[in-house]
């Protein structure tokens, strides 16, 4: 450090040479300045690094959150996949059971068919008048099956038939003339129904009717019901029609015989004594 003139002036000792100290001080100051510069540089660098790290941290945080969201989505997808599998398995079960079990509409139709059979049987036995039984047979045929023309034959002898009721026959269709036909005689002799499955029943003829149903009591044929023609809209006989024919064959015969016996007896109901023998069996 430069030294000015001494204020003391009269000092005996020569002024000390401070150039060394000065140089050292200058060196120290220069070094301090350099250190400060280095420090500032390092500080800026560190600051920049901190900023970079903060940015990186934020980015990593965002990635992590996105990864979590993806993880959650994947978990959700897995749950949905499991649900889908369960549903598919259920659908397969239902599909498989469809061939085994009836659907509700099918059950409804079956129930309706049973009702038809039940009501038809009830009605056939609800009268002891021959005319009444005849009318009920006609009703079953017309209203439940959709028959336009039919002939009801009764056996007077094992193979001799007499037409006792008919409806809807066309001009020229004579129920007496049809008695000798082969199919009719076969039904009487075998007791088995003769049904033409592959014909349109609405186009049926008396000489070759679509259905011949034996009327039987205890395996004995007492008559034959010839279903000659169905109504125009009915082009095919269905399962329930065949069931109704069967029912007419059994219940119709019993109802006719009961009504016949009742008429023969002068419309008097049997006395309770007539039923006493029931106890012996």
């Amino acid at each position, binding site marked *: 450090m430069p030294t000015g003139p001494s204020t003391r002036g009269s000092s005996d000792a020569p002024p000390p040479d401070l150039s060394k100290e000065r140089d050292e001080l200058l060196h120290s100051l220069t070094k301090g300045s350099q250190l400060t510069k280095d420090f500032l540089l390092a500080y800026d660098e560190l600051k920049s690094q901190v900023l970079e790290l903060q940015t990186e941290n934020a980015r990593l945080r965002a990635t992590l959150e996105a990864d979590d969201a993806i993880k959650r989505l994947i978990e959700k997808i897995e749950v949905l996949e499991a649900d889908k599998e369960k549903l598919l398995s259920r659908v397969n079960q239902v599909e498989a059971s469809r061939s085994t079990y009836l659907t509700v*509409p099918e059950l*409804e*139709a079956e*129930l*309706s068919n049973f*009702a*038809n059979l039940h*009501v*038809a049987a*009830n*009605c056939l036995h*609800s009268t002891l008048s021959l005319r009444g039984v005849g009318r*009920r047979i006609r*009703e*079953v045929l017309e*209203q*439940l*099956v*959709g028959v336009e023309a039919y002939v009801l034959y009764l056996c007077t002898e094992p193979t001799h038939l007499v037409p006792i009721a008919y409806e809807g026959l066309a001009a020229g269709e004579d129920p007496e003339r049809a008695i000798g036909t082969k199919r009719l005689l076969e039904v009487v002799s075998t007791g088995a129904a003769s049904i033409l499955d592959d014909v349109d029943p609405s186009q049926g003829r008396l000489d070759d009717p679509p259905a011949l149903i034996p009327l039987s009591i205890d395996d004995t044929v007492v008559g034959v019901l010839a279903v000659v023609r169905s*109504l*125009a*809209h*009915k082009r095919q006989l269905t399962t329930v029609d065949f069931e109704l024919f069967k029912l007419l064959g059994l219940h119709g015969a019993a109802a006719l015989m009961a009504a016949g016996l009742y008429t023969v007896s002068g419309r008097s109901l049997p006395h309770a004594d007539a039923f006493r023998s029931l106890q012996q069996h």
Partner: protein
Amino acid sequence: MTQQYSCLVVEDSPMMRQLVVFALGRQKNLHVTEADDGVDGLRKLASATFDIILTDINMPIMDGLKLIQRVRTDPRHKNTPIIVITTEGGKQDRDRALKLGANAYITKPIQAPQVIQTVRELLNLEG
């Protein structure tokens, strides 16, 4: 409490009547009254109010068409829904019935689901 409905079935054939009554029995809140023919039907309509009427067309004494005419002139029942029961071939009768004021028809041989569905539609009932 479930609302109750009353239905009049006019049909001369006991068998058909039983079948219709059976079908209607599927609707639990429906009370059914039966009539043998048009005259019997009118008698029952005079003594009670019905929410719906089912009638055959071909009946002795008074047929279904006359019954519809009479019902539609009765202030108490002029808006009561009427269902006619016809044969598939009875298109003319069916058309006449609809012209006279019937609301719907069902064809024989009747099927219970068809009967109950038609009644539910006309009474706005849920299945």
